[in-house]
């Protein structure tokens, strides 16, 4: 059995959430209007490219990329252009935590890829009108920061 590179699990965690983002943007893209259609299409392509890049990296390191689920339970029910944009912001908000493992990868280039993806995600989250991360340490949850009782 070929040993799998130790960075593969972190790549898989990021890929799993990029799959969900690609699914979510595909769904919400049908609901937005006007200029936002172009913006959503552009971001959708960004996530597809990240998904493909992560899968390629996993394969290159001897892993088998996790497959997309047939459907995802999304945090916002899309019923209007407004809720579509809310979903876009929520999807971006889920990314920093998913990339956090990769930010501690053995390969420095993967750390940079993760940090860039996290920075891009919060930037888009705010541009979609989402609430900025309510923490000084995005990607690390509030529970993680709570003092030991």
């Amino acid at each position, binding site marked *: 059995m070929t040993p799998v590179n*130790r960075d593969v699990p972190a790549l898989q965690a990021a890929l799993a959430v990029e799959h969900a983002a690609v699914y979510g943007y595909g769904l919400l893209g049908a609901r937005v209007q006007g200029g936002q259609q172009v913006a959503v299409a552009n971001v959708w392509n960004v996530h597809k490219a990240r998904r493909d890049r992560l899968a390629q990296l996993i394969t290159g390191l001897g892993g088998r990329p996790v497959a997309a689920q047939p459907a995802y339970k999304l945090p916002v029910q899309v019923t209007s252009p407004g809720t579509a944009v809310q979903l876009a912001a929520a999807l971006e908000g889920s990314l920093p935590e998913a990339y956090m493992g990769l930010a501690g*990868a053995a390969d420095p280039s993967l750390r940079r890829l993760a940090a*860039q993806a996290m920075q891009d995600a919060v*930037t888009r989250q*705010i541009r979609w009108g989402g609430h900025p991360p309510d923490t000084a*340490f995005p990607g690390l949850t509030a529970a*993680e920061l*709570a003092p030991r009782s």
Partner: protein
Amino acid sequence: MSPLPTGDLSLKTIDSQTRQRSFEQLTGVPYGMLAPGRADAGQERDPLPTSTERLRRRAVLGALAAGLPVLTSCSKDKPRPMPTPRPDVAVLTGAITTEQSLIALYGAVGTAHPALQARLAPLLSHHKQHLTVLQRHYRPGTTTGSPSPTPSPVAPTLPSGQSRALAALRTAELQAAAARTRDLAAVPAGLAQLFASISTCEAAHAALLGAPA
């Protein structure tokens, strides 16, 4: 005493337990359970570490803590084989300086434009938290000293006008995020995760500062 297990500071695998270990190395606080409903929630393991894992974490934390003051404390002991100075000491100092400069800049903008203070307060608070955690790394275990941030005395020069002051803050945030991203290769895995988180916070600040009030 055996040599510092420097190589072991990197993450072996990035499952939740490893993140936990890495996070606790950084902050000295326990890593809680991840929020439910995440895509990887099914892979989460028991958030409570076993006692063996606690010991291992402490050992690693000890190694990290012992490694940091090497530059100042080792020059006296000639006969000892000199541990290699860790490159992350300088990197950590740089990160601390960046946060101090940002805090000073926010202070200067707030003084010059009191109307902006309410908008800037949460962002300034984030930087003070960054500084606190970074300083905890630099001098691990020194809980008696005042942890209050002491911004560098350099008075930042501000462009005149509110919108230019905001633009200066935005630029400083983007530069800080870029610097921490560049530093990722030079630090142990746990510190890299902290830098990634801080850089993400700074990118968010830049986006907020670029948005209309």
